[in-house]
């Protein structure tokens, strides 16, 4: 379980803390989503998880152990993070790229062990990326690339998965495919912590939503508890209504105003 307790984060040189006392728990078997407007501190939390930003106050713990006490390699075997952006300057074959997910398990010179090969094979099957294995990373489409990156994270063999905006730039089919994959992983017992702008899909798939606003938790709870018109309107500073998603009955946000209404 990934736990944040009163986490305060400040970018070097910044006047105001980007994250001001956020607490949340991402438990096994659930999708926990962090949502909020641009600049609300979502990606800053991911940066802290990656050890690139030290907490000013409060802390992060993994299964009860404080993050600062966990060696980075060990962390990577417990929590797999898919950062927001990544573009290899020197293209790799997809199979080699996914195999890098075993980096935290490997010693510098030993070749892949049976466990490594097994983990990679399972990750490849799970993310359904077999068709691309022999291709180069620079030949993949946006949707294929995201799946390949998720496959590399799965190859890490961690019990928790953190994804920062995994469906940006994806079309509807690829976006749904990613959300369905995350849903299946959570059903299998993974802890999934998802940072996303896609409120409506998050409301459909997530078990627990944390809504951030200016670095603070504006609302947290089940989709029904968080997706309330007055809360979202205040946080996003835009008139909107919350309706019902016709497919599964989840709350769905509809922004108001449009052509001819200004």
């Amino acid at each position, binding site marked *: 379980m990934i736990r944040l307790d009163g986490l305060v984060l400040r970018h070097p040189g910044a006047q105001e803390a980007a994250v001001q006392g956020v607490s949340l728990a991402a438990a096994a078997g659930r999708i926990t989503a962090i949502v909020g407007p641009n600049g609300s501190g979502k990606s800053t939390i991911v940066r802290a998880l990656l050890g690139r930003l030290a907490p000013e106050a409060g802390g992060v713990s993994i299964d009860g152990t404080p993050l600062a006490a966990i060696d980075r390699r060990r962390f990577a075997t417990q929590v797999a993070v898919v950062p927001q952006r990544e573009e290899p300057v020197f293209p790799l074959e997809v199979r080699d790229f996914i195999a890098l997910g075993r980096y935290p398990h490997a010693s510098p010179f030993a070749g892949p062990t049976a466990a490594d090969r097994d983990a990679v094979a399972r990750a490849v099957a799970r993310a359904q990326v077999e068709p691309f294995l022999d291709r180069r990373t620079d030949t993949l489409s946006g949707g294929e690339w995201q799946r390949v990156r998720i496959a590399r994270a799965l190859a*890490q063999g961690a019990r928790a998965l953190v994804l920062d905006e995994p469906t940006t730039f994806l079309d509807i089919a690829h976006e749904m495919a990613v959300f369905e994959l995350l849903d299946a992983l959570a059903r299998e017992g993974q802890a999934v912590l998802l940072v996303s702008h896609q409120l409506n899909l998050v409301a459909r798939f997530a078990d627990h939503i944390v809504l951030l606003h200016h670095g603070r938790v504006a609302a947290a709870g089940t989709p029904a508890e968080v997706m309330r018109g007055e809360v979202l309107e205040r946080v996003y500073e835009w008139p909107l209504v919350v309706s019902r998603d016709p497919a599964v009955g989840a709350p769905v946000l509809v922004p108001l105003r449009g052509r001819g209404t200004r």
Partner: protein
Amino acid sequence: MSRRTAALLVAVLLLAVMLGLALGSVALAPDVVVAALLGRGDPTALAIVNGLRVPRVALGVFVGAGLAASGTALQATLRNPLAEPYLLGVSGGAAMGAVLVVVGGLTSPVFLPLAAFVGAAVAVALVLLVARAAGGRSDPRVLLMAGVVVGAFCTAAIMVLLATAPEGAVRGALWWMMGSLGDARAAAVTSVAAYVLVGMTLLLWWGRDLDVLSLGEEAAAALGLDVDRATRRIYLTASLLAAATVAGAGLIGFVGLVVPAIARALGVRGTRATVVAAALLGGALVVVADVVARTVASPAELPLGAVTALVGVPFFLWRLRATAAR
């Protein structure tokens, strides 16, 4: 790297070595060269091959390998296909460090590379600071600008140092600025070889770290790499490699740029394979460039760095266009 590619690269290096031993102001037939290597044949050929060309070609092989390996490492760490020790000012810093101690009267072939190493490490730190201050460490062009500026400062400082040094106390300015394999004494060759082999061993040891690092800071951290420590190690190792080549042969640009790119174009992937492939190709390139430098205007000798720059600059412009277009 496939076996075929590896065999091709070894063959290219052997061919370059053969050319380097056979050609020069006096051209020798291959069988004469081979006989001389085995200690047979007429004394003139023996003296030319074993006394002059073998150390010179050996120096070229290690200098080329060092420059190419250094470029490979810098490119992966900075995620910048245009990075290489000369353009980043690393070689300039190394030359300044070396010239400083030479002017100070210390010329031991063991100590010289160390002084060059200190100069190179300072230059790397300076370039990164300048680039960060300009807010563009991730922008390849800002980084190169910082490198060119630091390099220009170093060459200016070298010219001042050499102009004010007592005559004959130091090798000429041209030797440092334009590079040459002309000073291939056994001690210098051994020293360069030792430093280059140590540097390459370190890069191979950290090869997987470099693979992960080339994915970018966040992805590398996500995979459990201590990014800052790994980056420091690689910069220092790349500086050491560049410094050894500068101490042995002066400033030779663009080898670290051109060679890794050719290796990748041949389908070599992954840092370890690229370092090995680049070392083989880099050795070949410098030896051939030296043959060109020695023969084109014979008996006059062209500066080796000028020959590599004549090839490297058009290549650089072509790659710069491709990078800018991305």
